[in-house]
């Protein structure tokens, strides 16, 4: 007889105080099975995460129930997106949980959860996920979601520290010795600088000026209106959504209003992180270009201005993930090199209809999307 012949129907509900007991019992079972803490449900219900009463972006915790027993959960970020010429609400899937992690007989939970989400909202995607070999992206692939790497770009600002710290390339003794010699002799620095210089082209019409701002205002709406038609899929990046995505309380973020000859051309959001023993970047001071928007012909100006702002903060390395060809071209033009990406985009349902070609042709996805900023 199948194990679950007598199982109660599964249902997905927004997490509320009435689910707290079930959540605690779920966590106890996960704890007993030594599941990582990332796979636990919150034990107290809290209001949806927003930044203001009329915030256009909300995050809801859901719980998946079998009868009154919690078997899984997920966070859904509801957010307006520009989808094939219209503004639509799209769901971004974050932190899916399944009791299948602890007990294989609940292996049906994760597929049920993803099918149920897709049934409720055909405009749905997830970003990040680590790498295609992780369980969640493998599950999505099996469910015929479309998975694509969001290209990763980097630019070395301090070659000596880069060569000494970046563990991703210092993978064995011979390499460590080679990179140490390159760092201390100065030859590595010469080579890296020459490579960046060879690849860099100054944007036409001069450099943009960057002003640090606390909040986005009306000019951001103008930038959005001028830029949105270049994309078939892009999270709405107007004044109200940007202030929701990048609130003042996140003081590690630097928000930049970009102007060329006094005229607004766009904006960028950058972040600096002092790393300690990071698995890829050691103890570098890392600069990230989290998000940016400008009409396509100003994309190179926007990237260059973001780079200048981060260089002024004495970062050792600048990184970014960018999907759309407008931005990948602008980053290359600013001397960035590309490397292996662990930041994935997975789309399903009606979003697949847009994804008939490469992601670079239709979607503007970067670390500003979903919970991409969380791991920076």
């Amino acid at each position, binding site marked *: *007889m*199948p*194990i*679950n*012949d007598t*199982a109660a*129907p*599964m249902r997905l509900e927004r997490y509320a105080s009435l689910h707290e007991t079930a959540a605690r019992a779920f966590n106890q079972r996960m704890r007993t099975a030594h599941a990582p803490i990332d796979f636990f449900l919150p034990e107290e219900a809290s209001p949806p995460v927003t930044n203001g009463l009329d915030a256009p972006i909300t995050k809801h915790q859901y719980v998946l129930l*079998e009868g009154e027993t919690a078997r899984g959960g997920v966070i859904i970020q509801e957010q307006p997106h520009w989808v094939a010429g219209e503004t639509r609400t799209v769901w971004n899937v974050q932190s899916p949980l*399944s009791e*299948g992690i602890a007990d*294989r*007989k609940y*292996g*049906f*939970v*994760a*597929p*049920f959860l993803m*099918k*149920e989400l897709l*049934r409720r909202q055909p405009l749905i995607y997830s970003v990040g996920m680590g790498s295609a070999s992780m*369980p969640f992206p*493998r*599950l999505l692939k*099996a*469910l*015929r979601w479309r998975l694509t790497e969001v290209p990763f770009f980097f630019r070395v600002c301090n070659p000596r520290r880069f060569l000494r710290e970046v563990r991703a390339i210092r993978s064995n003794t011979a390499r460590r010795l080679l990179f140490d010699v390159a760092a201390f002799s100065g030859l590595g620095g010469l080579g890296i600088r020459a490579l960046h210089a060879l690849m860099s082209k100054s944007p036409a019409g001069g450099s943009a000026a960057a002003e640090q701002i606390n909040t986005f205002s009306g000019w951001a709406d103008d930038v959005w209106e001028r830029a949105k038609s270049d994309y078939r899929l892009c999270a709405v990046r107007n004044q109200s959504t940007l202030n929701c995505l990048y609130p003042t309380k996140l003081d590690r973020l630097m928000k930049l209003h970009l102007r060329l000859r006094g005229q607004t051309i766009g904006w960028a959001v950058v972040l600096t992180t002092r790393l300690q023993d990071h698995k890829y970047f050691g103890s570098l001071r890392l600069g990230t270009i989290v998000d940016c928007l400008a009409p396509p012909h100003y994309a190179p100006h926007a990237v260059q201005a973001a780079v200048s702002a981060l260089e002024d903060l004495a970062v050792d390395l600048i990184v970014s993930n960018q999907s759309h060809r407008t931005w990948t071209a602008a980053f290359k033009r600013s001397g960035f090199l590309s490397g292996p990406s662990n930041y994935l985009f997975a789309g399903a349902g009606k979003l697949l209809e847009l994804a008939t070609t490469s992601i670079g042709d239709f979607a503007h996805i970067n670390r500003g999307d979903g919970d991409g900023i969380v791991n920076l």
Partner: protein
Amino acid sequence: VTDSQRRLVQCFTAVFADLSEQQAAVATIDSVSDWDSIATVTLVSLIEEEFQIHIASDALAQLASFDAFYRYLEARSPANDLVAAR
């Protein structure tokens, strides 16, 4: 062995390559160590394709053995006779 059972065995052995046909015919989620959520999805996709049906997500909790899949297919067959589908 009916034609549907034979086709179902093929689906199981395609997903769980280590199973013999005899083992596949009595497989349960407890007896097959590789049977996880990804295997569930792959198996369901393969069976949907092979039998030209759609398996509702509500049914997934019940589909934890070869026998359960077979009985599900049997119930979905218009004549309730999968042999007739040959």
